[in-house]
């Protein structure tokens, strides 16, 4: 009964979305305020209905209602409660339901926070948001209904994929979806502005918080996924350039570009057409990502859904929204006369370079991802594009970006003196070069990757600190600190995010260049040396978990005779899913992770053991989370609260 109510709520939501897609836009065109006013309640009701459907599906999973075919395929009575809930989105149908829930949630928050938007702009934004809702609700209802019943329910389910039964992964998809779908707001604002024919600083101020929010969610989602891969897959890799990872990385790169170009529109009203184009493309990459993942067109280890019907449907959605928006762009963008002059050397130009590098980087990821498809269609060649290509073809653009970032971040608007800025950054530059040279000398004979990563990371962090120090001006320490504390949150956000990027770049290089690995057969009681550590396999015994069997190894780690820690790597077997998994045991440290994996028993006794020292692993997630934190600081800046939430009548002083 509850499942039927959920299904019914979805159908109603589809109807409401249809109204929301048509009436407000029509009203805005005719200047009919009553029709425009329909947008608010429609967006709210659509969200509540989809939330009800989502609650109904969650109820089915929590109560293990095996009359639903989706629950049978992805759940089991023995599964811990948290994974019963995570099972709701651990499959195609449920994850799409989460997608439309997030979509309608963003629409509803536009109503919530959009009190001061011009009436016609708000009606159009919500109308476009309604159209996207119609498309995806139709996709859900007609090709991927999560509420299908079984005529003969089985006694128990087939369980969720054991690799998905993990806290890191339980929360990874919701964040990623909030990011993907958050970009629909930027898209709706761009299309509404094109219809409206007005793009100015106020528009940029409205659209930037939504883009920031989407980018923060994407950052956190990607970080969680990467961290999960690191500890769960058993070889300490953190990024595989898999098509599904790329699907989330492309919108991240483009939305990062959009964040920066929206600043130029906001401060200087330049780059308006380009910013609109980026907003359209950012959501386009979200849709392309959805298509790649959902259609299985690119054989990826990740793609479950191998159903051409679904692929074609998403392709139609993609074609409609991208085709429509780009056509509108072509018709209207020409009318945007260039405003806000700036010199060849200026903050504006630096941000153009930032946008160019990020866009090209996203394009490289895109072409590498679809290349096997292109080659097969055009030349019948079956080939692969993997990590070695992306490492070689993508990295140079990131290096370029990191090189110009500290300089660009300090250049003044409109017209800049490059030499003066570089002179201020000279200490940071020398520090970075010295650290790189030192690392190169100490590591003797290994690849240049580590030293280059260290130098780039130090350049970004030191450059950011230089910027902050100069913002304090001159005077006593007290005066400087008080000036520092009065810096707008957006400036703190910028500094935090840029330093986070530096730390991430350093950690990636360090993990790739300086990891230590050891593979051997070990009998209980034996020990071996790994770097400065001595590792002893004490014993291996069997245990049972709630829904799995496990072989648990006890391994003692000592350094110069002193005990460091005892680690318990596991090899689990999930009988329902008939699948083994490895649970690496990790001793997390500030400067290194100790990463132990136990493998199969060997002929002749003993176990295969793999062990790693992963230098600066935590800096990778820390740096990425710093970027997200920087986004949050920026989002909390007063000017957005004023712009987004204020219903006060009094005008705010310009900042």
């Amino acid at each position, binding site marked *: 009964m509850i499942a039927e109510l959920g299904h019914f709520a979805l159908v109603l939501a589809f109807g409401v979305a249809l109204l929301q897609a048509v009436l407000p836009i029509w009203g805005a065109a005719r200047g009919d305020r009553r029709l425009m006013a329909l947008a608010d309640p429609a967006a709210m009701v659509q969200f509540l209905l989809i939330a009800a459907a989502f609650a109904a599906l969650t109820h089915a999973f929590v109560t293990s209602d095996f009359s639903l075919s989706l629950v049978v395929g992805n759940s089991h009575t023995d599964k811990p409660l948290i994974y019963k809930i995570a099972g709701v*989105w651990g499959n195609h149908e449920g994850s799409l339901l989460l997608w439309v829930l997030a979509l309608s949630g963003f629409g509803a928050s536009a109503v919530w926070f959009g009190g001061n938007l011009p009436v016609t702009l708000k009606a159009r934004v919500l109308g476009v948001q309604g159209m996207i809702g119609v498309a995806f609700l139709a996709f859900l209802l007609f090709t991927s209904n999560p509420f299908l019943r079984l005529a003969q329910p089985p006694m128990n389910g087939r369980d969720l994929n054991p*690799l*998905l039964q993990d806290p890191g992964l339980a929360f*990874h*998809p919701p964040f*990623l979806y909030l990011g993907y779908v958050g970009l629909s707001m930027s898209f709706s604002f761009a299309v509404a502005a094109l219809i409206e024919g007005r793009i100015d600083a106020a528009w940029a101020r409205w659209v930037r918080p939504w883009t920031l929010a989407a980018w923060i969610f994407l950052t956190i*989602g*990607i970080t969680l*996924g990467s961290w999960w*891969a690191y500890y769960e897959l*058993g*070889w300490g890799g953190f990024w595989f350039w*898999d098509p599904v*990872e790329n699907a*989330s990385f492309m919108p991240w790169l483009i939305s990062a570009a959009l964040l920066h170009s929206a600043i130029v529109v906001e401060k200087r*009203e330049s780059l308006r057409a380009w910013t609109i184009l980026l907003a359209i493309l950012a959501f386009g990459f979200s849709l392309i990502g959805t298509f790649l993942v959902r259609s299985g067109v690119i*054989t*990826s*280890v*990740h*793609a*479950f859904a191998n159903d051409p019907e679904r692929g074609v449907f998403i392709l139609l959605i993609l074609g409609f929204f991208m085709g429509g928006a780009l056509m509108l762009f072509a018709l209207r963008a020409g009318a945007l006369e*260039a*405003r806000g*002059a*700036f010199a060849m050397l200026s903050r504006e130009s630096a941000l*153009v*370079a930032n946008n160019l*590098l990020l*866009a090209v*980087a996203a*394009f*490289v990821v895109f*072409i*590498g991802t679809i*290349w096997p498809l292109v*080659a097969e269609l*055009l*030349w019948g*060649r*079956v*080939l*692969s594009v*993997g990590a*070695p*290509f992306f490492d070689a*073809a*993508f990295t140079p*653009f990131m290096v370029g970006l990191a090189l110009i970032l500290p300089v660009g971040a300090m250049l003044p608007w409109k017209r800049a003196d490059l030499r003066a800025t570089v002179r201020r950054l000279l200490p940071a530059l020398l520090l970075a070069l010295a650290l790189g040279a030192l690392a190169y000398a100490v590591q003797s004979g290994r690849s240049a990757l580590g030293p280059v990563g260290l130098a780039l990371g130090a350049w970004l962090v030191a450059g950011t600190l230089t910027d902050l120090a100069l913002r304090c001006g001159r005077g006593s320490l007290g005066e400087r600190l008080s000036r520092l504390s009065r810096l707008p949150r957006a400036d703190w956000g910028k500094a935090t995010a840029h330093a986070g990027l530096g730390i991430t770049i350093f950690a990636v290089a360090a993990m790739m260049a300086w990891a230590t690995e050891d*593979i051997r*057969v070990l009998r209980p009681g034996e020990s071996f040396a790994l770097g400065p550590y001595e590792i002893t396999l004490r014993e291996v015994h069997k245990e049972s978990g709630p829904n799995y069997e496990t072989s648990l190894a006890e391994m003692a780690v000592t350094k110069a005779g002193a005990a460091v820690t005892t680690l318990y790597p596991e*090899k689990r077997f999930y009988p329902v899913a008939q699948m083994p*998994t*490895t649970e*690496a045991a990790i001793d997390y440290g500030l400067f290194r992770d100790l990463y132990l*994996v*136990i*493998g199969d028993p060997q002929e002749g006794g003993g176990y*295969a*053991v793999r062990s790693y020292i992963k230098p600066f692993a935590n800096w990778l997630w820390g740096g990425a989370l710093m970027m997200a934190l920087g986004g949050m600081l920026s989002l909390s800046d007063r000017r957005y609260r004023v712009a987004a939430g204020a219903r006060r009548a009094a005008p705010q002083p310009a900042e």
Partner: protein
Amino acid sequence: MRRLILVLALLASPAFAVQPDEVLPDPVLEARARTISENLRCPVCQGESIDDSNAPISRSLRLAVRERLVAGDSDAEVMEYIVARYGEFVLFRPRASGSGLVLWLAGPAMLVLGGGIAFAMARRRAKAPEAEGLSAEDRARLEALLKE
């Protein structure tokens, strides 16, 4: 990315890719073997290198790579040997020749093109008049608002 994982599931099964008995005694040769393996795709898995894969065929490929290295082949010769038998599908890094050039040059070409456009625009922009005061459009809007 998560659905993602279903993914790995199929393949990632037990942890081990390179088994202890495969490792060559000479650390230099072994390091070369690892680098080569990371660039070769497991023919039956999806998206895993033979270095990461547990499939039996990946094990044979890893052993073949090591055999050739011990026999004195250069890295390029080992690659040739494997590609001749399994096709270019196993190359994770497509060759930068023929149509492969398009793939490799797409990024740099776009950078040059985009940079050229941005440069031309910036030159024009540097000469554009600074927007002062209200545009005609803004003035019309202001008047309309004042009338309301």
